[in-house]
């Protein structure tokens, strides 16, 4: 491109940027309080819509002027709905409030906006350092994170493109349009960025292959299929800052020479679909996408494709088949999509987080990015940390932080003061790691070495009450159902693995089952066609490796050490603790298995009991008389149940 064009480019973009800054200034300087409400799916699920309505209604009722600013998600799910109130007249800095229900919203309008009392008991912290209120940055859930991809998530309105532009958005697209493609690819290569979709393939290399691939037409696909159970990193990013992903896609498209791009989002993410569709529309209206982007000669059309929610459609070749209108079944690679992808054209497929990492890399430089994380895994990792952990949610940390730091420091450790049992990383393709591997650094290579996998960001923390055999069974049940059915090892092999695991949890396991589990798993890993089958045995293999004693207890003693497998446990009441005349357990038992003993305490009719554990929940804590044992034949017989008439 000639410099004259560059001048024009800068000029066109400056006008857009000025408009964005003008709007931002008007918002900031408006002499009224601002209420920022987290309105991504997680917030909405916790009641953010009701919270917003309560703010609106109470403001109107009390005739208070304030601006409501819907924003995305900051990732602190344990605290949803999250609200930031910026009320300069009160003399306080902007404040983070957690769990702001509709009732709390009403109260905050009255007491804080009207009377200036910030209600300290509901505060998470101030957004900035100050003398009045401790800042959230004193909280390790905030200060040990490193935000690169999610820096703007939860602070900008995802449905307003000017909000993103005012934060410097799209300026990297403008910059790259003035560079040659190989310069851009070199920068991405130098940054060491590796794909965040799971396999960690070097992004620069992928782009380079696509740039050199033969073909008039090239395509970029953003993979937002996100099928791992319990993982929602990509959804949150798309719902909180869609333009950063679109900007990354546009940069990629320009670099590899593509004029067509697709965002592949699962249909179960309706809000993400809506927000991304709107974002594309807004970007087109401003000339940041579409024909002749910012008066240059570069064209890019981005479409949204809604996937039907099959896990296997996250696999790149199946994803391509599914866009082409076929059954989502993976194909043999090579040819890789960069040579022969969608409709046969060279195609770059990158994960949402990979693409969203690109604008910050270009803005701050490859060296800056390499300064974050580890030598072989530069940058940050985003996990959705869920399960038995205190501060669940999305966490963005520099690669290389240990699992211990992430789980115990940043996420506050295990809920209810229980002991840690295992952490499952990488979703159904990943593995379960035990306590002695908690000092493993989180990076592509260390996790793979430990038998787990970086995956795309799912992390489930499990406490001492978790049965590892049952966890393996759960994941195999998932992969087995989500197998496309194409190849022998995955279709039939995972089914046998599941059956064996089911037998174990029912106490029907045999000695040879463990060996068969192992040898069949090895063969499935080597023999399967695609990544789904190749990794499906991982949860079984790792739990077998690290928790073999639990498996053996299930087989040899018919005992479930975590007291979770229903077939292997029994409930009874400790009569020293059971309160005479109390009926709490009996009234909630769904099968009338609780009977009254001759001294008016309670007993369990083992024949009727379905081991649902409702009695344990119902027993008042001051008695705490319900006990569980495994194997079930250890249950003491206190008194026989009376004959039922």
């Amino acid at each position, binding site marked *: 491109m000639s410099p004259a064009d560059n001048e024009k480019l800068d000029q066109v973009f400056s006008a857009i940027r000025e408009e964005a800054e003008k709007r931002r200034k008007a918002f900031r300087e408006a002499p009224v309080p601002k209420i920022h409400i987290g309105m991504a799916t997680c917030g909405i699920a916790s009641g953010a819509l009701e919270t917003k309505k309560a703010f609106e209604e109470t403001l109107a009722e009390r005739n208070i002027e304030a601006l409501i600013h819907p924003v995305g998600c900051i990732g602190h799910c344990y605290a949803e709905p999250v609200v930031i109130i910026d009320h300069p007249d009160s003399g306080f800095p902007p404040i983070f409030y957690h769990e702001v229900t509709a009732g709390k919203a009403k109260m905050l309008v009255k007491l804080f906006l009207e009377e200036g009392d910030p209600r300290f008991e509901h505060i998470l912290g101030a957004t900035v350092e100050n003398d009045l209120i401790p800042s959230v940055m004193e909280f390790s859930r905030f200060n040990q994170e490193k935000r690169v991809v999610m820096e703007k998530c939860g602070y900008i309105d995802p449905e307003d493109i000017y909000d993103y532009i005012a934060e410097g958005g799209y300026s990297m697209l403008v910059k790259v349009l003035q560079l040659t493609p190989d310069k851009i690819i070199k920068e991405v290569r130098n940054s060491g960025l590796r794909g965040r979709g799971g396999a960690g393939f070097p992004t620069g290399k992928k782009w380079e292959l696509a740039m050199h691939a033969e073909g008039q037409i090239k395509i970029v696909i953003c993979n937002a299929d996100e099928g791992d159970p319990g993982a929602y990193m990509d959804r949150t990013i798309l719902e909180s800052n869609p333009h950063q992903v679109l900007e990354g896609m546009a940069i990629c498209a320009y670099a590899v020479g593509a004029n067509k791009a697709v965002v592949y989002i699962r249909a179960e993410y309706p809000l993400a679909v809506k927000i991304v569709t709107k974002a594309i529309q807004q970007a087109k209206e401003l000339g940041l996408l579409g024909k002749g982007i910012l008066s240059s000669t570069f064209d890019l059309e981005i479409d949204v494709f809604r996937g039907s929610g099959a896990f296997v459609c996250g696999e790149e070749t199946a994803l391509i088949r599914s866009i082409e209108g076929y059954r989502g079944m993976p194909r043999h690679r090579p040819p890789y999509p960069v040579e022969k992808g969608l409709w046969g054209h060279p195609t770059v497929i990158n994960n949402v987080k990979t693409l969203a990492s690109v604008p910050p890399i270009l803005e701050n430089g490859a060296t800056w990015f390499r300064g974050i994380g580890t030598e072989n895994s530069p940058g940050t990792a985003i996990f959705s940390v869920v399960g038995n952990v205190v501060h669940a949610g999305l966490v963005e940390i520099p690669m290389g932080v240990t699992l211990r730091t992430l789980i115990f420091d940043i996420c506050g450790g295990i809920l209810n003061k229980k002991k840690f049992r295992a952490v499952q990383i990488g979703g159904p393709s990943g593995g379960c790691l035990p306590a002695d591997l908690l000092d493993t650094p989180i990076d592509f290579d260390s996790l793979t070495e430990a038998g787990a996998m970086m995956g795309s960001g799912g992390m489930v923390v499990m406490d001492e009450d978790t049965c590892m055999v049952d966890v393996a069974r759960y994941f195999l049940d998932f992969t087995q*159902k989500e197998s496309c*059915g194409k190849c*022998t090892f995955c279709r039939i092999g995972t089914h046998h693995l599941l059956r064996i695991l089911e037998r174990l949890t029912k106490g029907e396991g045999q000695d040879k089952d463990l060996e068969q589990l192992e040898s069949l798993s090895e063969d499935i890993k080597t023999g399967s066609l695609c990544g789904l089958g190749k990794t499906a045995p991982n949860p079984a293999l790792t739990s077998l490796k690290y928790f073999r004693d639990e498996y053996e207890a299930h087989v040899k003693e018919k005992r479930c050490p975590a007291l979770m497998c229903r077939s292997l446990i029994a409930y009874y009441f400790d009569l020293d603790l059971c309160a005479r005349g109390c009926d709490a357990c009996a009234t909630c038992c769904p099968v009338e298995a609780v009977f009254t003993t001759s001294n008016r305490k309670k007993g369990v009719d083992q024949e009727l009991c379905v081991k649902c554990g409702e009695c344990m929940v119902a027993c008042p804590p001051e008695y705490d008389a319900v006990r569980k044992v495994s194997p079930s034949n250890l249950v003491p017989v206190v008194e026989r149940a009376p004959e039922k008439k």
Partner: protein
Amino acid sequence: MPKLLVDNKEIEVKEGTTLLQACLDNGIYIPNLCYLESMDDPSASCRMCFVEIEGEEKPITSCTVTVKDDMVVKTDTLSVRRLHRTAFRLLLSVHHVDCKNCHVNKKCELQRIAKYLEVGLKPKHLEQHLKEPDIDQDHPFLDYYPNRCVLCGKCIHICRKKHGQSVLTFAKRGFDTVISSYGKNDVSSLACEKCVVCVDICPVGALILKEAQE
């Protein structure tokens, strides 16, 4: 023309041939169920035709490899055999073995592979899991036996090749995957009455013309 060494035998084949085809053409058998020379893209789904190639870390399906000069290939190493046998046993674990009453008895590809691999047709290692019902009679002209089918996909491919669009398709997912058909209700538009390509190509007798059974 590339020359390669397979099990210490030198063979010379046309450029662009798949390794599996090259071996089969030269009298070297590798177990296979889903491969058809006429497919542009090998489906590579039966996972039977594993071989070891010098320089490759792991066994690899020979239908997905194009021959190269000086390739050194082994078709019967321990690890290759282990995969052959496991894949075969998996297939048999869902196969209703009833050869006496099967119309492809003695012509069945599974019988051939069993003999070749020296694996009994009634495997002891894995539990048998059969689908219900044993026969799908939905199609006006064809009966389908899910517990014979190995889901190689040849029937779908050949139907599409002959008619431009396949009447047959994969249906359901995971372990429940079966072959199903389209357009059954409009019998007049079905070419099936006079066409038996799918029946002929099925390696295991999972498809059969209704009238042939009567």
